């Protein structure tokens, strides 16, 4: 009986068909290739993309400026009198060109005003496009662009700021 079994095994090559069936399974499987320029990839939850600064909640404490190992961030606090009513910085410079995406500034921020976005396409034709000031800081456009995968990990304050209160009361 054993001999017949062995002979049958020798004649029909079951191992070969096993291998063929394995590769056939792979033929119909989902492909792992990322077709990047045609289809945007899905980005991991904790991806460290381009830095986004929410200037509305910034309190000009300059902790991010001190934490940054590359010195990309420069924060200019408002004059002392204004600091009592509105702590938003007078000027905020962000040099994305030197940014290491180390997320030390994000960790140091007490109000969560600075955080990583999911934007990963950082190629520019001119270095000046990577220098941002208070007005040009990228925040709102990106939100629309990456709608499907954008998870807001920083809650935006809904209450009106002291400055706005003052303006409203006028």
């Amino acid at each position, binding site marked *: 009986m054993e001999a017949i079994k062995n002979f049958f095994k020798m004649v029909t090559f079951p191992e070969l068909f096993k291998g063929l069936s394995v590769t*056939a399974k*792979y*033929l119909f499987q989902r492909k*792992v290739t990322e*077709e990047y320029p045609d289809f945007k990839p899905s980005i991991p939850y904790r991806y460290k993309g381009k830095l986004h600064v929410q200037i509305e909640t910034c309190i000009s404490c300059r902790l991010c400026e001190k934490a940054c190992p590359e010195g990309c961030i420069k924060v200019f606090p408002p004059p002392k009198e204004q600091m009592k009513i509105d702590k938003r910085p007078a000027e905020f410079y962000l040099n994305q060109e030197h940014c290491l995406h180390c997320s030390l500034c994000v960790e140091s921020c007490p109000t969560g005003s600075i955080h990583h976005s999911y934007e990963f396409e950082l190629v520019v034709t001119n270095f000046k496009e990577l220098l941002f000031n208070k007005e040009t800081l990228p925040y709102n456009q990106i939100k629309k662009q990456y709608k499907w995968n954008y998870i807001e990990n920083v809650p935006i304050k809904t209450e009106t700021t002291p400055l706005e209160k003052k303006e409203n009361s006028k």
Partner: protein
Amino acid sequence: MNTDFLLHYIAFPLIKIAILLAAVFTVVAYIVLVERRLLGFFQSRLGPNRVGPFGLIQPIADGMKLFLKEDVVPLNANPVLFKLAPVFAFFPPFVGFAVLTFALPLIMPSGKMHSFSVADVDLGILLILSISSLGIFGIILAGYSSGSKYPLFGSLRSASQMLAYEVPLTLSVIAVIMMAGSFRLSDIVAAQQTYKLYFVIPGIIAFVVYLISVVAETNRTPFDLPEGESEIIGFHTEYSGMRFAFFFMAEYANVVLICMLTPALFLGGYDIPFVNDLELYKAHPYLVSTLGFISYAAKSTLFAFFYIWIRATFPRYRYDQLLKVGWLVLLPISLFNLFLVAGIKLFLLK
């Protein structure tokens, strides 16, 4: 009479040759693309899909690239033999296509019989076997004339491999010839049509031996020692540009030739499955010829897919295992099979 002679013996064959060559070159160019894409699918990749829709212009891009490359002849090489070797490797598979028959013949309005082959000679299958073994000269010359040791070893490996597998291949084809009673390829298909039985069933052992040895003959993956893409260095190490393309195209032309030959030998060729072709042919000759051609193409395509599937699956043999399988396993099996087939022919096929 003179114009008749010109038409039937010069013009028609030339037109047939032109059509056949164009078709074969296109198929050879595209089977490379199909293989690369299918290998990609087998490995959960996508394969080349950048040039044109689905990568359809990729062969042209590859050809352009190879054509524009620098033509290097090494200093130590023998320049004459070095330039001759690709040509020697290139022409045998293309000769083989001449004796293939693609469909049942048609009777033209002028009364002449019009066969769908360039030259349906009496010894068609023998011609293919003998010419395809000429291809080895190209490989040996390439290794010998390169003036480098690795190509020489590669070509020696190739020579012994081809010798080892030529014998079982021929013996398994002889089994088919015995069953059909003719060397002519159209007769072999006709025999399968009259017996209403594809030779794969009585000659299953011959078919298995044929499959294995044909993969070895065309230097494909389980047996691709002459080339050894990834780790061992092959016979065309010193070749670049268009000369390398000649070897490459010869390899794939061989694959296409085998893919077209196997259905004719074992799977009924241009016979339409589950239909009595010969009776239907009397009523609708044009329909049967067309459908027969389509079925032949379908069988060849399926076999080509199987060929690529094999390449995607099996790892390479070691050199001593390769020769052992050739001489000590396949040769005795195919010799034994000859007796078996002779018995089948005597008692069963009538």
